C-alpha cells in the first residue's frame, strides 16, 4: 500500500519534470517570480523561473521541489533588485498581493501578473488550484497544468483512502517563533485545507488571522490541546530553542509530549501552492503510518 502511494507521488514529479524540462528550457517563457509559491509551481510544471527572490534561502524554507542552479537570485521580495530583473529580460513577472506594491516599478521592465492564493475567501488550496491553471495559461503550458492538477487530485484521494482505514488523531501544526511562542495554523491556512482533503482533524479550532495562523504562547497551546492530539512542528527551529523546551515543565508535562506524540517535520513552504500541499500531505501520511505500524 505504502509503496503504491510513494510510486504515485514520485510519479507526479517524474512525469512532470523529466521529459519536459529540456523541451521548455529552449522555447518556454522567461519568468521572474517574487514569490516562492509560484516558483515551486513552475518548477513542478517543468518550467523553472529565470529568477526568484532570496534564492539562497530556498533550502531553508521550501526544500522540495529543489531549485535548479540556473535560477538567479533577485534579492528580497519587498525590495527585489530591479536592475537584476531588468538584466534577466523576463517575458513577465509574478507578484502576490503582498508584493503588489511594487507593480508600478516592475511594469517598467515587463508585464506583471499577480498570483493570489491568500484572499478573503480563506480557501488557499482551492485558490492554488485556480492560480496554477492561470499560471499555466500565462506560460503557455495550460495542458501541463491541467494534467498536474488532475494527478494531484488523484494523489490526495489516494492518500485519503489509504488513511481511511487507520486511526486518525487530531493534529496541531506549528512553527516555533522562539522558546515561548509558536505560530499555530488553523482556518484559512493551506495546511487546514490539506487536512480537510485527507479527512483529518485540526486540533486548533480557535481563531486565526488572514493568513491562517495565530501567534500564541506555549501555555495557550497546552490549554487547548485534546489529550489524543499529535503535535507537529516544522523546521526551521532555532538551535537555542530545543534545550529550553526540554527544561520547560509546561512543555514536558503536556500529554502530547509525555506520550511522545510530538514530532518535527522538515521545512514545508507555509504559504505555498499545490506542490507544498502535496509535500505536506505525504509527510503527514508517512508519519501517521509510522505511528500505527
Amino acid at each position, binding site marked *: 500500500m505504502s509503496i503504491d502511494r510513494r510510486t504515485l507521488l514520485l510519479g507526479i514529479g517524474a512525469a512532470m519534470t523529466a521529459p519536459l524540462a529540456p523541451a521548455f528550457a529552449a522555447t518556454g517563457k522567461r519568468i521572474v517570480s517574487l514569490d516562492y509559491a509560484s516558483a515551486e509551481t513552475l518548477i513542478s510544471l517543468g518550467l523553472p523561473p529565470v529568477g526568484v527572490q532570496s534564492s539562497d534561502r530556498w533550502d531553508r524554507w521550501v526544500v522540495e521541489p529543489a531549485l535548479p542552479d540556473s535560477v538567479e537570485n533577485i534579492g528580497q521580495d519587498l525590495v527585489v533588485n530591479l536592475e*537584476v530583473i531588468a538584466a534577466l529580460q523576463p517575458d513577465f513577472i509574478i507578484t502576490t498581493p503582498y508584493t503588489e506594491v511594487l507593480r508600478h516599478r516592475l511594469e517598467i521592465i515587463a508585464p506583471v501578473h499577480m498570483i493570489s492564493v491568500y484572499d478573503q475567501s480563506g480557501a488557499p488550496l482551492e485558490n492554488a488550484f485556480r492560480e496554477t491553471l492561470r499560471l499555466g495559461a500565462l506560460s503557455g503550458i495550460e495542458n501541463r497544468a491541467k494534467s498536474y492538477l488532475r494527478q494531484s487530485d488523484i494523489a490526495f484521494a489516494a492518500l485519503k483512502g489509504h488513511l481511511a482505514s487507520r486511526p486518525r488523531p487530531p493534529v496541531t501544526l506549528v512553527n516555533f517563533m522562539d522558546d515561548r511562542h509558536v505560530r499555530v495554523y488553523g482556518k484559512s491556512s493551506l495546511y487546514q485545507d490539506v487536512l480537510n482533503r485527507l479527512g483529518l482533524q485540526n486540533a486548533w479550532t480557535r481563531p486565526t488571522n488572514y493568513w491562517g495562523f495565530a501567534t500564541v504562547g506555549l501555555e495557550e497551546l497546552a490549554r487547548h490541546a485534546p489529550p489524543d492530539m499529535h503535535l507537529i512542528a516544522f523546521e526551521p527551529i532555532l538551535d537555542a530553542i530545543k534545550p529550553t523546551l526540554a527544561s520547560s515543565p509546561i512543555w514536558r508535562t503536556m500529554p502530547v509530549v509525555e506520550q511522545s506524540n510530538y514530532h518535527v517535520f522538515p521545512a514545508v513552504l507555509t504559504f505555498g501552492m499545490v506542490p507544498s500541499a502535496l509535500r505536506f500531505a505525504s509527510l503527514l501520511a508517512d508519519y501517521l503510518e509510522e505511528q500505527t505500524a
Partner: protein
Amino acid sequence: MIAAVTTNRAPWLTGGLFLAAGLLSWLLISAYLPLLLSHPEGYSVERMIALHSVLPRMATALLCGAALSLSGVLLQIALRNPLASPTTLGVSAGAHLALVLASLFAPALIAFSRDLVAGAGSLVAASVVFAVVSRRNFSPVTLVLGGLVVSLYCGAAATLLVLLNDRYLVSLFIWGAGSLSQQDWSIPLGLLPKLAVLGVAALFLVRPLGILSIGDEGARALGASPGRLRFLTVVIAIGLAAIVTSAVGVIGFIGLAAPALARLAGARTVKAQIVWSTLVGACLLFMTDNAIQLLAGPLSNFVPTGAVTALFGSPLLLFLLRGTRSLQAPDQMPYTVTRWSWPVLPTASLGAVLPLGLLAASILFGRDASGAWDLVFSSSAYDLLLELRVPRVLSAAAAGCLLAAAGVLLQRLAGNDMASPEVLGVSSGAMLGLAFGVFFLTPGQILPLIACAAVGSFGIMGLILLMNRKNGFQAERMVLAGIAVTALLDALIGAFAASGDLRSLLLLRWMSGSTYGATVESAALIAVLSVLLTLAALSFARWINGLDLGDSAASAIGLPVRRARFLLFCLAGLMTAAATLFVGPLSFIGLMAPHIARQLGFTRARGQILVSASAGASLMIVADWIGRYGYFPYEMPAGLISALVGTPFLMVLLSRRV
C-alpha cells in the same frame, strides 16, 4: 535637609498601587486557586499553567519592575538628573543590540553568558553617551538627548540586522519588545540572586549618596570621593538594567516613571527615594502586566509588556519635561567655535563640485546580474537601467540636501547641536501615517500611502507646535517631544511585528528608509522641492543669524521672534516630511551635515546651509550606492547605512569639542 519639610506620602502611593495590582492579580489567579491548593489526580493543564506560567510571570514582573526602578533612581541620584533612566540613557537599547549581534555572529558568547553580553552592550552605550555629553555642561536635557540618540542608533542597527536576516529573526522582535510571559521558574529564580546582590550593594550606597547630596565640596570634606562614588553607582545601575534586559527584553520607561512618581508623592531623602522608587516600580510593572493579561487574555493574542510601558511612558516623559522648568538648559551653544578654518573659496567650490561628481559616478558604476562590476553603458539594456537608477540617485541627493538644511535650521533654533529632524518626530509622524495606510487601506497602491504619510507628518508637527505654543517654541522641548513620539512609534511597530503580521515587514522596509520606491515623477518632484525649500531657508538667513543673539537681543533689533521661530520650524518640518518619504525616519544626515559645515568654518547661516546641503547630498548619494551594491543582489536601505556609518563619525566629532 529639605526632606523634613514635606511629608512623604510615597508609602501611601505604594500601598495604593499594591492594592490595585493585588486586585488585578486576584482576578487573574482566583480561578486557579482551588487547583493550586488541592492536589488533583493526573494531569491538569490549568494547574500547570498557574504554577509555571501565571505565578512566575507575576514574580518576574515584580522583580523586573523593582530592578529597573532601582536602576533608574540610582542613575538619577548619581547624575543629579531627574530624566535619567535605563531607557533614556540608551542602556537598554545597547544591551538589546549586543544580544542581537551576539546571537547572529557569536552564539557561543550567548551560551557562555547572556548577562555578560548584555552588560557589555549597556556599558558601551552608556560610555558613548557619557563621552559625548561630559565635554559639555552635562545639562539634564542634553544628556537625555544624547542617550536617546544612542537608543535610536542601536534600534536602527538591530532593525537592519533583522531585515537582512529575513523572517528568521522574528523571535528577536518578541524579545526586543519585552515579553514577560514565562514557561517555568528559571527566569525569576535566575534573576533573584543576581538582582539581590546588586540590590544589597545599592543599600550600602545609601549613606554615601546621602552625604553626596549636600554637595561635592561638603562630601569631600567628610572624606568621601564623589567621582568614584558616582562611577560605582552608575555601574551598579547599568548592571541591574542589563540583567533585566538580558532576561526579558527591553521594558521601557519603568525606570523613569517609578522614581518620578515616588518623588511626586514626597520621597525626598536619598534613602526614601531609593526605597520607595523600588517598591513603586515593582507594583507599577506588576499592575501593568496584570492589566495587560486581563485585557488581552481573551483575545489569545499576546501583547508585549515592554511595548505597553513605552506607550504610557513616552507621554510621561513629556509631562515631566513640562513640569521641570528649572531644567531649561542654560546652554546657548557657542556657535562661533571652529576647529579648522579652511579657505572659503576652495571649500565652497569643492562643495559645489563634489555632489555633482558623486551623482555622475554613482549612476555610471554598478553591477550586472551576476554581480560583476560594470559601467552602465556596457549593458544592452542601459536605457532601462538608467530609468531605474537615475531617479534613485537623484532622490537620495535631494533628500540628503533637505535633511541637512532642516538640520541646520533646527540646531540653530534649538541652540543645541544634538537636535536633528530625525529626532524631531515629524518623520515618525510620517511613519505612523504609513502604518495606518498599510493596515487599513487596500494594499497595492502607492499614492494613498504617500498621502497618509504626509497627513501623519503634518498631524504630529501640528500637535508638537500646539503643545509648545505657550513656551515660545523652544526647539529643545520640541525635539524631546519628537523623541517621545518616535519611542511610541517603535513600540507600536514592535508590537505589530511580534504578532507575526506579515505587513509589519513592509512597514519595517519603509522605516529603514530606502530610495527604492523612487520613480521619475517622484524624483523630479523632490528635486524641485529640495531646490525651492533650500532657497527659502537661505532667504531666512537674516532671521536665523538674528535669533542666535538670543530672544531679547533679537527683539531689540526688530525681529518678530515668535513668528520667526514658528515659520522656521514649519519649514524644517516640511523639509523633513518630504525627505522622510524617500530615506525613512532615521538617517542622521540632518545631525551630521550641519556639523561638517561648522567644522569647516562655515558658521554664518547662509554658508552653513549651503555647505551642509552639499555635504548631506554627497553623504546620501554614497549611502545609497553602498545600499544598492554592498550586499548584492540584496538591497540595503540608504537611510540606515548613512545612520550606521555616520553616527560613530558624529560621536568622534562631538567628543573632540571642548
